[in-house]
């Protein structure tokens, strides 16, 4: 088609700017529907949780009539019984019971029992309901039900920060034996930082050496670096299991060399996890650094030295500033990827090396509590984006202009 082969300069600036947009439109649409929309839909579950309100319309109305806090009167219990009967008939009672159980541990089986009694049309007053579900005689249960009937909730986001609403209506810390997420977020960022620094320490000298090699040899070295990059992350993780385990290759080697007198506990430990993650992330840090280093003219450093700079000064004042964008881009890429690690911590990390992704996966796959998973994902996404924006803005780094 000649119109593509012979691009004509368009008459107006507006058409000029629309053309690239039109070319990218299929991709943008695909991203919007397959990536953007599901993310928004999932994340919205962190704050929008209508299950309890939908299951208890009569109870919500009756609670509005009922004055004051604490355990409500007879009309609310009758409304609750009617709601449970309907939820049972509609098959919605299990989801309701499970959602309430998150806020009120132990409520699940009691609510299901109360629903069965309500369905059998036996006495459904306060006494009968409390007999089936003793939880309903407690003030704090009703506090949980009252807050649960709000469709919009801060419960999950607060939980993601180990916080909760206290009985006095203030925000406070959850009990120490339930506080886990802040520690896990801290651990995730700590391990990501260590791995990023470790890959930088390995990648920088290696990239420098590769740029100074003859092109043919540099190609071979690059392929050696990239070869593991083309292998599945699961396979690489499994390979590290073979190397790191107690009677594995590394321990055999260390003993044979006499460097250690006892077998090291490398598997199921943070050391092992960091070694494996560093290996997997190395190409991500290396390639941006290498691509920038290749474009730096060696003549500039030589010029600096010929003008009297010592080698270190020439490196520090002339070479390093030029490769800095590559270093930052590589580090940022690795750091952000590390924040989302899942399979390597599962297989190589110990119990106290699980990262936030492992907890998100647990809430999605095991607990079926997608609200909590969405809240944790939101915190992870927001902190990652915040970090990205901060770095690009204050360090003048633009990943899209790399290369």
């Amino acid at each position, binding site marked *: 088609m000649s119109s593509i082969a012979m691009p004509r300069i368009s008459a107006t600036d507006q058409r000029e700017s629309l053309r690239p947009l039109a070319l990218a439109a299929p991709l943008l649409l695909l991203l919007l529907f397959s990536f953007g929309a599901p993310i928004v839909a999932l994340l919205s579950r962190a704050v929008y949780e209508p299950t309890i309100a939908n299951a208890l319309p009569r109870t919500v109305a009756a609670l509005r009539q009922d004055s004051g806090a604490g355990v409500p009167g007879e009309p609310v219990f009758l409304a609750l019984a009617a709601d449970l009967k309907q939820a049972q008939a509609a*098959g919605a009672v299990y989801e309701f019971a499970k959602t309430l*159980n*998150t806020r009120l*541990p*132990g*409520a*699940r*089986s*009691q609510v299901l029992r109360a629903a069965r009694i309500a369905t059998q049309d036996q006495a459904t007053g306060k006494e009968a309901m409390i007999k089936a579900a003793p939880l309903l005689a407690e003030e704090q249960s009703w506090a949980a039900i009252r807050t649960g009937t709000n469709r919009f909730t801060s419960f999950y986001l607060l939980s993601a920060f180990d916080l909760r609403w206290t009985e006095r209506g203030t925000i406070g810390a959850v009990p*120490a*034996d*339930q*506080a*886990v997420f802040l*520690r*896990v977020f801290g*651990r995730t960022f700590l391990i990501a930082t260590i791995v990023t620094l470790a890959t930088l320490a390995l990648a920088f000298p290696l990239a420098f050496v590769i740029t100074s090699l003859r092109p043919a040899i540099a190609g071979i070295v690059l392929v050696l670096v990239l070869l593991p990059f083309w292998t599945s992350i699961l396979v690489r993780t499994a390979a590290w299991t073979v190397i790191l*385990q*107690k*009677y*594995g290759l590394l321990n055999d080697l260390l003993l044979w060399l006499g460097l250690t007198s006892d077998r090291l506990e490398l*598997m*199921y430990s943070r050391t092992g996890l960091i070694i494996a993650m560093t290996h997997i992330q190395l190409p991500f840090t290396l390639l941006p650094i290498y691509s920038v280093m290749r474009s730096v003219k060696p003549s500039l450093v030589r010029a600096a030295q010929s003008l009297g700079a010592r080698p270190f000064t020439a490196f520090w004042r002339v070479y390093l500033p030029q490769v800095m964008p590559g270093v930052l881009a590589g580090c940022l890429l690795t750091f952000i990827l590390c924040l989302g690690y899942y399979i390597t911590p*599962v297989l190589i990390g*110990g*119990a*106290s090396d*699980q990262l936030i992704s492992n*907890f998100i996966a*647990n809430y999605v796959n*095991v*607990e079926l*509590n997608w609200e909590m998973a969405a809240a944790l994902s939101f915190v992870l996404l927001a902190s990652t984006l915040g970090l990205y924006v901060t770095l690009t803005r204050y360090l003048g780094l633009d990943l899209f202009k790399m290369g």
Partner: protein
Amino acid sequence: MLAYDTTVLKEAPSSVLDIFDTKKFPGKRAMRKAPAQNLEWALMADGVPIADVYKVLGTPEGVDRAFKKLDTIKKDIVWWDAGAQPPQLLASREVVMTTAWNGRIQSAIDQEKRPFAIVWNNQIVEYDMIAIPKGAKNLDLAYKYLAYAAEPEVGAQLGRFIPYGPVLTDATPFVPKDVLPKLPTAPDHMKIYLVGDVEFWGDHGEDLVKRFNAWLAQ
């Protein structure tokens, strides 16, 4: 149940609860990275009668007690996630003993000829369920299948393919003679056991998993 390598342990453990005895059986031991079963074993090891395990575990003091017992071996535990890990952990001699699903250990013994052995006393028995989804197209056929699967002669054949026991005790006499000694439901293995309480974990799974994770992270 508990599995160990007979070439590593000179003396055979007599009960799953021996996993808490680091004096008699020093070395790393593996447990599943979940509160279910481990808390029950911790209470049994702490002297709670089997009949009272879930009653005690239903109280805050009981949960504290179970975690306190787990504290005593925490530094010696390697945690596993997937059912394939326990035989692998034993084979690589990463641990001296491990809790496991018996089917995985049995297939390592039978097919890979590993020198593993199983300790059945204080095992926790769990059930799998068959459910018919709401709105199933062939509801009558599904019921027929349930009736068929529940026949003692049929249930008894399961063990020929994977060493898990039939749900009905009536089925035990129909289990092939060479299979029976491998099953958790063999009369010899059902002397001291606890049946996992599905309803308890339905109610308390989520908060106990959270507490378990907080405990792990400490």
